[in-house]
Protein backbone atom coordinates (compact mmCIF):
# COMPACT_ATOMS: atom_id res chain seq x y z
CA UNK A 1 0.00 0.00 0.00
CA UNK A 2 1.10 3.54 -0.70
CA UNK A 3 1.45 5.82 2.30
CA UNK A 4 0.39 8.81 0.22
CA UNK A 5 -1.55 8.70 -3.01
CA UNK A 6 -2.30 11.93 -4.82
CA UNK A 7 -4.33 11.68 -7.98
CA UNK A 8 -4.88 14.57 -10.39
CA UNK A 9 -5.06 17.15 -7.62
CA UNK A 10 -6.31 20.62 -8.48
CA UNK A 11 -6.63 23.60 -6.22
CA UNK A 12 -8.10 26.91 -7.26
CA UNK A 13 -8.22 29.52 -4.51
CA UNK A 14 -11.15 31.87 -4.09
CA UNK A 15 -10.37 34.67 -6.51
CA UNK A 16 -9.32 32.26 -9.23
CA UNK A 17 -5.64 31.71 -8.45
CA UNK A 18 -4.69 28.25 -9.67
CA UNK A 19 -2.20 26.86 -7.17
CA UNK A 20 -2.26 23.23 -8.26
CA UNK A 21 -2.89 22.18 -11.77
CA UNK A 22 -3.40 18.43 -11.66
CA UNK A 23 -0.54 16.83 -9.75
CA UNK A 24 -0.24 13.12 -9.10
CA UNK A 25 2.33 11.22 -7.07
CA UNK A 26 2.71 8.29 -4.72
CA UNK A 27 4.89 7.90 -1.66
CA UNK A 28 5.85 4.44 -0.50
CA UNK A 29 6.53 3.29 3.04
CA UNK A 30 9.81 4.29 4.63
CA UNK A 31 10.98 6.71 1.96
CA UNK A 32 11.70 10.41 2.01
CA UNK A 33 9.85 12.00 -0.85
CA UNK A 34 10.68 15.61 -1.64
CA UNK A 35 8.68 18.09 -3.58
CA UNK A 36 11.08 20.60 -4.98
CA UNK A 37 10.15 23.86 -6.54
CA UNK A 38 10.47 27.62 -6.39
CA UNK A 39 8.43 29.71 -3.97
CA UNK A 40 4.82 29.86 -5.04
CA UNK A 41 4.97 26.68 -7.10
CA UNK A 42 2.15 25.14 -5.07
CA UNK A 43 4.18 23.02 -2.64
CA UNK A 44 2.63 24.38 0.54
CA UNK A 45 -0.85 24.15 -0.92
CA UNK A 46 -0.29 20.47 -1.68
CA UNK A 47 1.02 19.83 1.85
CA UNK A 48 -1.92 21.64 3.43
CA UNK A 49 -4.36 19.53 1.45
CA UNK A 50 -2.64 16.31 2.50
CA UNK A 51 -2.59 17.55 6.12
CA UNK A 52 -6.39 18.17 5.91
CA UNK A 53 -6.04 21.93 6.37
CA UNK A 54 -7.34 22.79 2.91
CA UNK A 55 -10.01 21.21 0.76
CA UNK A 56 -8.97 20.23 -2.77
CA UNK A 57 -10.92 21.71 -5.66
CA UNK A 58 -10.82 18.36 -7.42
CA UNK A 59 -8.81 15.16 -7.46
CA UNK A 60 -8.24 12.63 -4.73
CA UNK A 61 -5.73 12.43 -1.91
CA UNK A 62 -5.37 9.55 0.52
CA UNK A 63 -3.00 8.67 3.34
CA UNK A 64 -2.63 4.96 4.14
CA UNK A 65 -5.64 4.44 1.90
CA UNK A 66 -7.81 6.87 3.89
CA UNK A 67 -9.36 9.73 1.98
CA UNK A 68 -8.35 13.13 3.39
CA UNK A 69 -11.59 14.93 2.58
CA UNK A 70 -14.20 12.39 3.58
CA UNK A 71 -12.36 11.00 6.58
CA UNK A 72 -10.20 13.88 7.79
CA UNK A 73 -10.06 12.91 11.45
CA UNK A 74 -8.77 9.42 10.71
CA UNK A 75 -6.01 10.94 8.57
CA UNK A 76 -5.18 13.51 11.26
CA UNK A 77 -4.58 10.72 13.73
CA UNK A 78 -1.84 9.13 11.63
CA UNK A 79 0.03 12.13 10.30
CA UNK A 80 2.45 14.59 11.81
CA UNK A 81 2.59 18.00 10.19
CA UNK A 82 5.33 20.57 10.57
CA UNK A 83 4.14 23.73 8.86
CA UNK A 84 6.34 26.19 7.07
CA UNK A 85 5.29 29.06 9.32
CA UNK A 86 6.38 28.60 12.89
CA UNK A 87 3.48 27.28 14.89
CA UNK A 88 4.82 26.73 18.41
CA UNK A 89 3.31 29.14 20.90
CA UNK A 90 6.13 31.47 21.85
CA UNK A 91 4.56 32.45 25.16
CA UNK A 92 4.76 28.86 26.39
CA UNK A 93 7.83 26.80 27.17
CA UNK A 94 9.10 24.17 24.76
CA UNK A 95 7.84 21.30 26.86
CA UNK A 96 4.44 22.97 27.36
CA UNK A 97 4.07 23.19 23.60
CA UNK A 98 4.81 19.52 23.07
CA UNK A 99 2.57 18.45 25.97
CA UNK A 100 -0.29 20.53 24.61
CA UNK A 101 0.12 18.99 21.19
CA UNK A 102 0.22 15.47 22.65
CA UNK A 103 -2.92 16.08 24.69
CA UNK A 104 -4.74 17.06 21.50
CA UNK A 105 -4.31 13.42 20.47
CA UNK A 106 -6.12 12.26 23.59
CA UNK A 107 -2.92 11.37 25.43
CA UNK A 108 -3.20 11.81 29.21
CA UNK A 109 -1.27 14.61 30.87
CA UNK A 110 1.27 12.35 32.60
CA UNK A 111 1.95 10.31 29.49
CA UNK A 112 2.13 13.50 27.44
CA UNK A 113 4.85 14.90 29.71
CA UNK A 114 6.86 11.69 29.53
CA UNK A 115 6.61 11.58 25.75
CA UNK A 116 7.38 15.28 25.44
CA UNK A 117 10.63 14.95 27.38
CA UNK A 118 11.61 11.94 25.29
CA UNK A 119 11.01 13.81 22.04
CA UNK A 120 12.77 16.95 23.24
CA UNK A 121 15.76 14.86 24.19
CA UNK A 122 15.74 13.30 20.75
CA UNK A 123 15.89 16.69 19.03
CA UNK A 124 18.50 17.98 21.46
CA UNK A 125 16.26 20.39 23.34
CA UNK A 126 16.22 18.68 26.71
CA UNK A 127 18.12 21.48 28.42
CA UNK A 128 15.93 24.15 26.85
CA UNK A 129 12.68 22.31 27.59
CA UNK A 130 11.56 24.71 30.31
CA UNK A 131 12.52 27.88 28.51
CA UNK A 132 9.91 30.13 26.95
CA UNK A 133 9.95 29.54 23.19
CA UNK A 134 10.39 33.26 22.51
CA UNK A 135 13.99 32.83 23.66
CA UNK A 136 14.71 29.99 21.20
CA UNK A 137 16.91 30.44 18.15
CA UNK A 138 15.55 29.70 14.69
CA UNK A 139 17.16 26.27 14.62
CA UNK A 140 15.82 25.36 18.05
CA UNK A 141 12.32 26.39 17.00
CA UNK A 142 12.48 24.16 13.96
CA UNK A 143 13.57 21.24 16.09
CA UNK A 144 10.76 21.96 18.53
CA UNK A 145 8.32 21.96 15.61
CA UNK A 146 9.74 18.62 14.56
CA UNK A 147 9.18 17.21 18.06
CA UNK A 148 5.61 18.55 18.03
CA UNK A 149 4.99 16.80 14.73
CA UNK A 150 6.00 13.47 16.23
CA UNK A 151 3.84 13.38 19.38
CA UNK A 152 1.31 10.98 17.93
CA UNK A 153 3.94 8.60 16.55
CA UNK A 154 2.70 9.24 13.00
CA UNK A 155 2.82 6.94 9.98
CA UNK A 156 3.62 9.92 7.80
CA UNK A 157 5.54 13.06 8.67
CA UNK A 158 4.90 16.09 6.50
CA UNK A 159 7.64 18.70 6.58
CA UNK A 160 6.93 21.95 4.78
CA UNK A 161 10.24 23.71 4.10
CA UNK A 162 11.85 22.34 7.26
CA UNK A 163 15.05 24.37 7.02
CA UNK A 164 13.73 27.62 5.62
CA UNK A 165 15.75 30.56 6.90
CA UNK A 166 18.23 28.49 8.92
CA UNK A 167 21.97 28.95 8.93
CA UNK A 168 24.18 26.21 7.49
CA UNK A 169 25.00 24.67 10.86
CA UNK A 170 21.35 24.41 11.93
CA UNK A 171 20.37 23.03 8.56
CA UNK A 172 22.92 20.25 8.80
CA UNK A 173 21.74 19.39 12.32
CA UNK A 174 18.14 19.24 11.18
CA UNK A 175 19.06 17.08 8.18
CA UNK A 176 20.68 14.70 10.58
CA UNK A 177 17.50 14.40 12.67
CA UNK A 178 15.40 13.89 9.57
CA UNK A 179 17.72 11.14 8.29
CA UNK A 180 17.65 9.44 11.67
CA UNK A 181 13.85 9.46 11.74
CA UNK A 182 13.87 7.61 8.46
CA UNK A 183 16.69 5.20 9.27
CA UNK A 184 15.94 4.41 12.90
CA UNK A 185 12.17 4.59 12.97
CA UNK A 186 11.43 3.73 9.36
CA UNK A 187 9.24 6.83 9.22
CA UNK A 188 7.80 7.88 5.87
CA UNK A 189 8.54 11.53 5.24
CA UNK A 190 7.00 13.83 2.69
CA UNK A 191 8.76 17.15 2.51
CA UNK A 192 8.90 20.26 0.42
CA UNK A 193 11.95 22.35 -0.14
CA UNK A 194 13.33 24.91 -2.48
CA UNK A 195 16.89 23.96 -1.64
CA UNK A 196 18.30 21.64 -4.31
CA UNK A 197 21.02 20.27 -2.09
CA UNK A 198 18.49 19.44 0.60
CA UNK A 199 16.38 17.40 -1.78
CA UNK A 200 19.51 15.77 -3.16
CA UNK A 201 21.00 14.80 0.21
CA UNK A 202 17.84 13.63 1.96
CA UNK A 203 15.38 12.17 -0.46
CA UNK A 204 14.86 8.80 -2.03
CA UNK A 205 12.68 10.38 -4.65
CA UNK A 206 12.13 13.93 -5.84
CA UNK A 207 9.32 15.55 -7.75
CA UNK A 208 10.05 18.90 -9.32
CA UNK A 209 7.01 21.09 -9.32
CA UNK A 210 6.53 24.33 -11.19
CA UNK A 211 3.39 26.40 -11.75
CA UNK A 212 1.26 23.83 -9.98
CA UNK A 213 2.45 20.91 -12.09
CA UNK A 214 4.97 18.14 -11.59
CA UNK A 215 7.50 18.52 -14.39
CA UNK A 216 9.66 15.51 -13.58
CA UNK A 217 9.94 12.83 -10.92
CA UNK A 218 12.56 10.27 -9.93
CA UNK A 219 15.43 9.53 -7.58
CA UNK A 220 18.07 12.29 -7.42
CA UNK A 221 20.58 10.04 -9.21
CA UNK A 222 18.11 9.17 -11.92
CA UNK A 223 17.27 12.80 -12.53
CA UNK A 224 20.88 13.85 -12.64
CA UNK A 225 21.85 11.05 -15.01
CA UNK A 226 19.12 12.17 -17.39
CA UNK A 227 21.05 15.34 -18.01
CA UNK A 228 24.22 13.42 -18.74
CA UNK A 229 27.68 14.90 -18.97
CA UNK A 230 29.09 18.06 -17.40
CA UNK A 231 27.85 21.54 -17.78
CA UNK A 232 29.91 24.64 -18.42
CA UNK A 233 28.23 27.87 -17.50
CA UNK A 234 29.58 30.98 -19.11
CA UNK A 235 28.39 34.34 -17.91
CA UNK A 236 28.88 36.73 -20.79
CA UNK A 237 28.30 40.45 -20.57
CA UNK A 238 26.79 40.71 -24.07
CA UNK A 239 26.30 37.32 -25.69
CA UNK A 240 26.14 37.78 -29.47
CA UNK A 241 23.35 36.22 -31.52
CA UNK A 242 25.45 33.62 -33.23
CA UNK A 243 27.08 32.42 -30.05
CA UNK A 244 24.94 29.30 -29.85
CA UNK A 245 25.69 28.20 -33.41
CA UNK A 246 29.39 28.70 -32.91
CA UNK A 247 29.51 26.69 -29.69
CA UNK A 248 27.38 23.83 -30.96
CA UNK A 249 29.96 23.28 -33.68
CA UNK A 250 32.66 22.50 -31.13
CA UNK A 251 33.54 18.84 -30.84
CA UNK A 252 32.12 17.14 -27.74
CA UNK A 253 29.35 19.70 -27.15
CA UNK A 254 26.00 18.03 -26.60
CA UNK A 255 23.79 21.06 -26.31
CA UNK A 256 23.73 24.77 -25.66
CA UNK A 257 21.15 27.11 -24.36
CA UNK A 258 21.00 30.68 -23.31
CA UNK A 259 19.13 31.83 -20.24
CA UNK A 260 19.40 35.56 -19.74
CA UNK A 261 23.12 36.22 -20.15
CA UNK A 262 24.25 32.79 -19.08
CA UNK A 263 25.26 30.27 -21.71
CA UNK A 264 24.84 26.72 -20.54
CA UNK A 265 26.89 24.25 -22.49
CA UNK A 266 26.39 20.57 -21.99
CA UNK A 267 29.53 18.64 -22.83
CA UNK A 268 30.85 15.09 -22.59
CA UNK A 269 33.81 16.29 -20.63
CA UNK A 270 34.24 19.81 -19.38
CA UNK A 271 38.02 19.53 -19.16
CA UNK A 272 38.40 18.52 -22.79
CA UNK A 273 35.98 21.05 -24.23
CA UNK A 274 37.21 24.02 -22.23
CA UNK A 275 40.23 24.94 -24.34
CA UNK A 276 38.31 24.92 -27.59
CA UNK A 277 35.43 26.80 -26.04
CA UNK A 278 37.67 29.61 -24.87
CA UNK A 279 39.11 29.88 -28.34
CA UNK A 280 35.67 30.18 -29.92
CA UNK A 281 34.51 32.73 -27.38
CA UNK A 282 37.45 35.01 -27.99
CA UNK A 283 37.17 34.61 -31.77
CA UNK A 284 33.60 35.97 -31.75
CA UNK A 285 34.61 38.71 -29.37
CA UNK A 286 32.46 37.72 -26.41
CA UNK A 287 33.62 39.25 -23.17
CA UNK A 288 33.36 36.61 -20.50
CA UNK A 289 32.56 37.64 -16.95
CA UNK A 290 32.91 34.23 -15.39
CA UNK A 291 33.06 30.57 -16.21
CA UNK A 292 32.04 27.69 -14.00
CA UNK A 293 32.04 23.97 -14.47
CA UNK A 294 29.32 21.90 -12.88
CA UNK A 295 28.92 18.22 -12.53
CA UNK A 296 25.22 17.29 -12.82
CA UNK A 297 23.08 18.65 -9.97
CA UNK A 298 19.40 18.96 -9.34
CA UNK A 299 19.76 22.65 -10.13
CA UNK A 300 20.50 21.69 -13.67
CA UNK A 301 17.67 19.21 -13.70
CA UNK A 302 15.39 22.03 -12.74
CA UNK A 303 16.66 24.31 -15.47
CA UNK A 304 16.56 21.47 -17.94
CA UNK A 305 12.90 20.76 -17.29
CA UNK A 306 11.53 24.22 -16.66
CA UNK A 307 13.77 26.24 -18.92
CA UNK A 308 14.32 28.76 -16.16
CA UNK A 309 16.94 29.58 -13.58
CA UNK A 310 15.94 28.44 -10.17
CA UNK A 311 17.01 31.31 -7.96
CA UNK A 312 17.22 35.06 -8.36
CA UNK A 313 14.02 35.09 -10.25
CA UNK A 314 11.40 37.76 -10.15
CA UNK A 315 8.11 36.29 -9.09
CA UNK A 316 5.73 35.87 -11.98
CA UNK A 317 2.32 37.50 -11.83
CA UNK A 318 0.87 34.21 -10.71
CA UNK A 319 3.23 34.00 -7.78
CA UNK A 320 2.73 37.58 -6.81
CA UNK A 321 -0.96 36.88 -6.71
CA UNK A 322 -0.50 33.87 -4.45
CA UNK A 323 1.76 35.89 -2.19
CA UNK A 324 -0.76 38.69 -1.93
CA UNK A 325 -3.46 36.18 -1.22
CA UNK A 326 -1.38 34.57 1.51
CA UNK A 327 -0.69 37.87 3.15
CA UNK A 328 -4.38 38.63 3.22
CA UNK A 329 -5.16 35.40 5.05
Amino acid at each position, binding site marked *: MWVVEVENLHKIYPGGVKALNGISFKVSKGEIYSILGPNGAGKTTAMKIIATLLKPTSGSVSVMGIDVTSNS*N*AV*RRIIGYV*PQDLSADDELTGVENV*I*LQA*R*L*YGISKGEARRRAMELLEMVGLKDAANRIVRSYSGGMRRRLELAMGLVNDPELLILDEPTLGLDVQSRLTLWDYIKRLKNERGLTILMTTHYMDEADKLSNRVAIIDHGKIVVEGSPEELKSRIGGDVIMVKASKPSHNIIDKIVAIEGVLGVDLVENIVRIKVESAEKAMAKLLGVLSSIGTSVESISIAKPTLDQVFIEYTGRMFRDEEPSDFRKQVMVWRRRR
Partner: protein
Amino acid sequence: MIRETAALYEREMVKWFRQKVQLVFVVIIPLMWMGLFGKSLNFSVLFRIPDVPGIEPIRAQIQHLIEEHIVKRYFGTYDYFSFFVVGMLSVFILFTTMWSGMSIVFDRRLGYLNRFLVAPIPRYSIVVSKILSSVTRSLIQASALLVIALALGLSLKASVGPIEILVLYAVITALAISFSSIFTAVAIRITSHDLVISIANLVNLPLMFTSNALFPTQQMPEYLQIIARLNPITHANNINRYFLLGVGDPVSLVGSAVYMILFTVVSLAIAMILSRKIE
Protein backbone atom coordinates in the same frame (compact mmCIF):
# COMPACT_ATOMS: atom_id res chain seq x y z
CA MET B 1 -13.44 15.86 23.72
CA ILE B 2 -13.08 16.90 27.36
CA ARG B 3 -9.35 16.14 27.38
CA GLU B 4 -8.62 18.25 24.32
CA THR B 5 -10.80 21.10 25.50
CA ALA B 6 -9.13 20.97 28.92
CA ALA B 7 -5.69 21.08 27.32
CA LEU B 8 -6.60 24.06 25.16
CA TYR B 9 -8.29 25.83 28.09
CA GLU B 10 -5.23 25.30 30.22
CA ARG B 11 -3.08 26.90 27.54
CA GLU B 12 -5.27 30.01 27.48
CA MET B 13 -5.17 30.38 31.24
CA VAL B 14 -1.43 29.73 31.56
CA LYS B 15 -0.79 32.42 28.96
CA TRP B 16 -3.12 34.85 30.73
CA PHE B 17 -1.68 34.38 34.18
CA ARG B 18 1.83 34.59 32.77
CA GLN B 19 1.17 38.17 31.71
CA LYS B 20 1.46 39.77 35.11
CA VAL B 21 0.41 43.17 33.76
CA GLN B 22 -3.03 41.76 32.99
CA LEU B 23 -3.56 41.07 36.66
CA VAL B 24 -2.73 44.67 37.51
CA PHE B 25 -5.36 45.81 35.03
CA VAL B 26 -7.93 43.53 36.61
CA VAL B 27 -7.65 45.74 39.69
CA ILE B 28 -7.09 49.13 38.04
CA ILE B 29 -10.05 49.06 35.67
CA PRO B 30 -12.74 48.61 38.36
CA LEU B 31 -10.96 51.15 40.56
CA MET B 32 -11.26 53.69 37.75
CA TRP B 33 -14.91 52.98 37.09
CA MET B 34 -16.04 52.74 40.69
CA GLY B 35 -13.75 55.33 42.24
CA LEU B 36 -13.98 57.96 39.51
CA PHE B 37 -17.16 57.45 37.54
CA GLY B 38 -19.27 55.82 40.24
CA LYS B 39 -18.44 58.43 42.81
CA SER B 40 -18.85 61.45 40.52
CA LEU B 41 -22.10 60.36 38.89
CA ASN B 42 -23.73 59.66 42.23
CA PHE B 43 -27.38 60.69 42.09
CA SER B 44 -27.87 60.22 45.81
CA VAL B 45 -25.31 62.97 46.36
CA LEU B 46 -26.47 65.14 43.44
CA PHE B 47 -29.96 65.33 44.90
CA ARG B 48 -28.80 66.29 48.39
CA ILE B 49 -29.87 69.77 49.53
CA PRO B 50 -26.94 71.60 51.07
CA ASP B 51 -27.07 72.69 54.70
CA VAL B 52 -28.24 76.29 54.94
CA PRO B 53 -28.56 77.62 58.51
CA GLY B 54 -32.12 78.33 59.60
CA ILE B 55 -34.05 76.11 57.15
CA GLU B 56 -33.45 72.89 58.98
CA PRO B 57 -36.89 71.29 59.56
CA ILE B 58 -38.05 72.18 56.05
CA ARG B 59 -34.78 71.07 54.47
CA ALA B 60 -35.09 67.65 56.01
CA GLN B 61 -38.69 67.30 54.83
CA ILE B 62 -37.92 68.36 51.27
CA GLN B 63 -34.86 66.14 51.24
CA HIS B 64 -37.03 63.26 52.34
CA LEU B 65 -39.58 63.99 49.59
CA ILE B 66 -36.88 64.18 46.92
CA GLU B 67 -35.32 60.94 48.02
CA GLU B 68 -38.67 59.21 48.22
CA HIS B 69 -40.16 60.49 44.95
CA ILE B 70 -37.12 60.84 42.76
CA VAL B 71 -34.20 58.75 43.88
CA LYS B 72 -36.11 55.84 45.35
CA ARG B 73 -38.85 55.90 42.72
CA TYR B 74 -36.41 55.68 39.84
CA PHE B 75 -33.62 53.60 41.25
CA GLY B 76 -35.56 51.52 43.75
CA THR B 77 -33.04 52.43 46.41
CA TYR B 78 -31.73 55.56 48.12
CA ASP B 79 -28.20 54.45 47.37
CA TYR B 80 -27.31 55.15 43.74
CA PHE B 81 -23.72 53.96 44.13
CA SER B 82 -24.89 50.44 45.00
CA PHE B 83 -27.40 50.54 42.12
CA PHE B 84 -24.56 51.51 39.79
CA VAL B 85 -22.11 48.90 41.07
CA VAL B 86 -24.49 46.00 40.62
CA GLY B 87 -25.32 47.27 37.12
CA MET B 88 -21.66 47.56 36.29
CA LEU B 89 -21.02 43.93 37.27
CA SER B 90 -22.88 42.89 34.10
CA VAL B 91 -21.28 45.63 32.03
CA PHE B 92 -17.85 44.43 33.13
CA ILE B 93 -18.75 40.96 31.92
CA LEU B 94 -19.41 42.57 28.54
CA PHE B 95 -16.22 44.65 28.64
CA THR B 96 -14.13 41.55 29.33
CA THR B 97 -15.82 39.07 27.02
CA MET B 98 -16.12 41.35 24.00
CA TRP B 99 -12.42 40.72 23.33
CA SER B 100 -12.82 36.95 23.28
CA GLY B 101 -12.64 36.88 19.47
CA MET B 102 -9.17 38.35 19.60
CA SER B 103 -7.43 35.16 20.62
CA ILE B 104 -8.81 33.14 17.69
CA VAL B 105 -7.70 35.83 15.28
CA PHE B 106 -4.21 35.89 16.77
CA ASP B 107 -4.01 32.10 16.87
CA ARG B 108 -4.69 32.12 13.18
CA ARG B 109 -2.25 34.91 12.40
CA LEU B 110 0.57 33.40 14.39
CA GLY B 111 0.04 29.93 12.98
CA TYR B 112 -0.99 28.27 16.25
CA LEU B 113 -4.43 27.50 14.92
CA ASN B 114 -3.01 25.20 12.23
CA ARG B 115 -1.50 23.10 15.00
CA PHE B 116 -4.91 22.58 16.53
CA LEU B 117 -6.59 22.02 13.20
CA VAL B 118 -4.27 19.18 12.15
CA ALA B 119 -5.08 17.35 15.38
CA PRO B 120 -8.02 14.94 15.41
CA ILE B 121 -10.12 17.11 17.71
CA PRO B 122 -13.68 18.24 17.21
CA ARG B 123 -13.58 21.80 15.87
CA TYR B 124 -15.93 22.98 18.61
CA SER B 125 -13.41 22.06 21.30
CA ILE B 126 -11.29 24.99 20.07
CA VAL B 127 -14.26 27.35 20.35
CA VAL B 128 -15.37 25.93 23.70
CA SER B 129 -11.88 26.41 25.17
CA LYS B 130 -11.94 30.06 24.05
CA ILE B 131 -15.38 30.59 25.55
CA LEU B 132 -14.43 28.93 28.83
CA SER B 133 -11.27 30.97 29.23
CA SER B 134 -13.13 34.17 28.43
CA VAL B 135 -15.82 33.26 30.99
CA THR B 136 -13.16 32.56 33.61
CA ARG B 137 -11.40 35.85 33.01
CA SER B 138 -14.61 37.83 33.11
CA LEU B 139 -15.66 36.19 36.39
CA ILE B 140 -12.28 37.04 37.91
CA GLN B 141 -12.75 40.61 36.69
CA ALA B 142 -16.28 40.83 38.10
CA SER B 143 -15.13 39.42 41.45
CA ALA B 144 -12.37 42.02 41.65
CA LEU B 145 -14.95 44.68 40.94
CA LEU B 146 -17.22 43.37 43.69
CA VAL B 147 -14.47 43.41 46.30
CA ILE B 148 -13.26 46.87 45.32
CA ALA B 149 -16.82 48.23 45.33
CA LEU B 150 -17.43 46.81 48.81
CA ALA B 151 -14.36 48.67 49.99
CA LEU B 152 -15.65 51.84 48.32
CA GLY B 153 -19.04 51.73 49.99
CA LEU B 154 -21.26 49.23 48.19
CA SER B 155 -23.93 48.24 50.68
CA LEU B 156 -25.81 45.03 50.02
CA LYS B 157 -29.14 44.27 51.62
CA ALA B 158 -28.87 42.80 55.10
CA SER B 159 -30.06 39.33 54.17
CA VAL B 160 -27.40 38.62 51.55
CA GLY B 161 -25.98 35.15 52.16
CA PRO B 162 -24.46 32.30 50.17
CA ILE B 163 -27.65 31.78 48.12
CA GLU B 164 -27.72 35.39 46.92
CA ILE B 165 -24.03 35.18 45.97
CA LEU B 166 -24.68 31.91 44.16
CA VAL B 167 -27.51 33.53 42.18
CA LEU B 168 -25.23 36.45 41.32
CA TYR B 169 -22.56 34.12 39.97
CA ALA B 170 -25.10 32.02 38.08
CA VAL B 171 -26.40 35.15 36.40
CA ILE B 172 -23.06 36.66 35.44
CA THR B 173 -21.78 33.26 34.32
CA ALA B 174 -24.77 32.90 32.00
CA LEU B 175 -24.15 36.42 30.71
CA ALA B 176 -20.45 35.67 30.24
CA ILE B 177 -21.21 32.47 28.33
CA SER B 178 -23.58 34.26 25.97
CA PHE B 179 -21.30 37.19 25.26
CA SER B 180 -18.20 35.01 24.91
CA SER B 181 -20.07 32.73 22.51
CA ILE B 182 -21.24 35.61 20.37
CA PHE B 183 -17.92 37.41 20.22
CA THR B 184 -15.98 34.19 19.61
CA ALA B 185 -18.42 33.08 16.90
CA VAL B 186 -18.09 36.44 15.17
CA ALA B 187 -14.31 36.04 15.01
CA ILE B 188 -14.32 32.51 13.59
CA ARG B 189 -13.92 33.68 9.99
CA ILE B 190 -12.32 37.06 10.69
CA THR B 191 -8.66 37.38 9.80
CA SER B 192 -7.94 40.95 10.90
CA HIS B 193 -7.71 41.98 14.51
CA ASP B 194 -8.63 45.54 13.52
CA LEU B 195 -12.09 44.31 12.69
CA VAL B 196 -12.42 42.65 16.09
CA ILE B 197 -11.45 45.93 17.75
CA SER B 198 -13.98 47.83 15.64
CA ILE B 199 -16.74 45.42 16.56
CA ALA B 200 -15.92 45.63 20.26
CA ASN B 201 -15.84 49.43 20.11
CA LEU B 202 -19.09 49.47 18.21
CA VAL B 203 -21.04 47.48 20.77
CA ASN B 204 -19.57 48.31 24.16
CA LEU B 205 -21.12 51.69 24.97
CA PRO B 206 -24.43 51.17 23.13
CA LEU B 207 -24.98 47.92 25.02
CA MET B 208 -24.24 49.66 28.30
CA PHE B 209 -26.52 52.65 27.62
CA THR B 210 -29.40 50.60 26.22
CA SER B 211 -29.58 48.64 29.43
CA ASN B 212 -30.59 49.53 32.97
CA ALA B 213 -26.96 49.50 34.09
CA LEU B 214 -26.66 53.25 34.72
CA PHE B 215 -30.31 54.39 34.64
CA PRO B 216 -33.55 52.56 35.09
CA THR B 217 -35.48 51.91 31.89
CA GLN B 218 -38.88 53.29 32.88
CA GLN B 219 -37.99 56.91 32.05
CA MET B 220 -36.63 55.91 28.62
CA PRO B 221 -38.63 56.57 25.42
CA GLU B 222 -40.68 53.63 24.19
CA TYR B 223 -38.23 52.47 21.47
CA LEU B 224 -35.33 52.47 23.92
CA GLN B 225 -37.34 50.44 26.38
CA ILE B 226 -37.88 47.80 23.72
CA ILE B 227 -34.15 47.66 22.99
CA ALA B 228 -33.39 47.55 26.69
CA ARG B 229 -35.76 44.62 27.10
CA LEU B 230 -33.86 42.69 24.42
CA ASN B 231 -30.53 43.47 26.05
CA PRO B 232 -29.51 40.59 28.34
CA ILE B 233 -27.62 43.03 30.58
CA THR B 234 -30.99 44.49 31.63
CA HIS B 235 -32.29 41.11 32.70
CA ALA B 236 -29.10 40.17 34.49
CA ASN B 237 -29.30 43.43 36.42
CA ASN B 238 -32.96 42.90 37.30
CA ILE B 239 -32.12 39.61 38.95
CA ASN B 240 -28.90 40.79 40.60
CA ARG B 241 -30.45 43.98 41.99
CA TYR B 242 -33.31 42.05 43.49
CA PHE B 243 -31.08 39.51 45.19
CA LEU B 244 -28.29 41.87 46.26
CA LEU B 245 -30.11 45.14 46.92
CA GLY B 246 -33.76 44.11 47.33
CA VAL B 247 -34.66 46.38 44.41
CA GLY B 248 -37.46 45.48 42.01
CA ASP B 249 -40.39 43.21 41.69
CA PRO B 250 -39.89 39.47 42.27
CA VAL B 251 -42.65 38.56 39.78
CA SER B 252 -40.80 40.12 36.83
CA LEU B 253 -37.72 38.06 37.69
CA VAL B 254 -39.24 34.93 36.17
CA GLY B 255 -39.35 36.59 32.78
CA SER B 256 -35.79 37.82 33.16
CA ALA B 257 -34.55 34.38 34.21
CA VAL B 258 -36.26 32.68 31.25
CA TYR B 259 -34.84 35.27 28.87
CA MET B 260 -31.33 34.82 30.27
CA ILE B 261 -31.49 31.06 29.90
CA LEU B 262 -32.79 31.23 26.33
CA PHE B 263 -30.27 33.86 25.34
CA THR B 264 -27.41 31.81 26.72
CA VAL B 265 -28.51 28.58 25.07
CA VAL B 266 -29.07 30.21 21.69
CA SER B 267 -25.74 32.09 21.74
CA LEU B 268 -23.84 28.97 22.69
CA ALA B 269 -25.62 26.94 20.01
CA ILE B 270 -24.72 29.52 17.37
CA ALA B 271 -21.05 29.40 18.41
CA MET B 272 -21.06 25.59 18.29
CA ILE B 273 -22.62 25.49 14.85
CA LEU B 274 -20.27 28.13 13.45
CA SER B 275 -17.25 26.38 14.97
CA ARG B 276 -17.40 23.95 12.04
CA LYS B 277 -16.38 26.83 9.81
CA ILE B 278 -12.97 27.23 11.43
CA GLU B 279 -10.16 26.79 8.98
